[in-house]
């Protein structure tokens, strides 16, 4: 009698142990690679306003000529050392680090805004 019970139990167990077929989604590889935390991103207007705010903090800046299109050295009357400082201040505002090679390129307010816009880490 107990032998019969054991046999029945074994049969039931093997049936349960059989792997349940899990349907593998077709886009499995994509799902593994996908990041679900998309960055909100900064709007162009927000970046412009914040960059201009940073520049307003510099006393050497000619406030009357301060527009998004102005250049640091010609329009705003900054020397090369202060330009470096402006770029550093922008870095600090957006908590990023701009490499030296790219920091050299930034000579206008617009270039600074564009650089922030294309940097995903900026926030």
């Amino acid at each position: 009698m107990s032998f019969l019970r054991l046999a029945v139990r074994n049969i039931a167990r093997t049936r349960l142990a059989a792997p349940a077929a899990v349907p593998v989604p077709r886009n499995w590889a994509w799902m593994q690679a996908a990041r679900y935390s998309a960055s909100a991103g900064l709007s162009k207007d927000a970046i412009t306003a914040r960059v201009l705010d940073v520049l307003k903090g510099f006393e050497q800046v000619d406030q009357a000529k301060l527009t998004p299109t102005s250049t640091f050295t010609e329009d705003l009357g900054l020397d090369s050392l202060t330009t470096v400082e402006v770029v550093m201040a922008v870095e600090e505002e957006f908590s990023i680090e701009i490499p030296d090679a790219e920091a050299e390129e930034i000579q206008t307010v617009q270039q600074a805004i564009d650089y922030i816009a294309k940097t995903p880490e900026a926030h």
Partner: protein
Amino acid sequence: MAATAPSKQAILNLYGSTLRASRAFSSYNFRQYFVRRTRGVFQEIKDEKDAGKLRAFYDEKTKELEVLKRSAIVNQLYGGWKLVVEKQQPSRERADS
């Protein structure tokens, strides 16, 4: 032997790195001092044309930058509370109090 002057861009890069190292200090007094000092020292040399002097300045400041970086790290390890004059972290309050 005539010393070659470092390029303008090299000096500007050194200026940027030194400022960045100065800002890394965690205590307010050191931070402000080194930022101020860096500004002053580089403003003084701004109109210098003599290649020998520029080279000497550049070499000296490059060495100083290394010292400054190390000091900033040590200072970060032993950073104290923020002073009242500094920008404080926004204070958070419990919702149920």
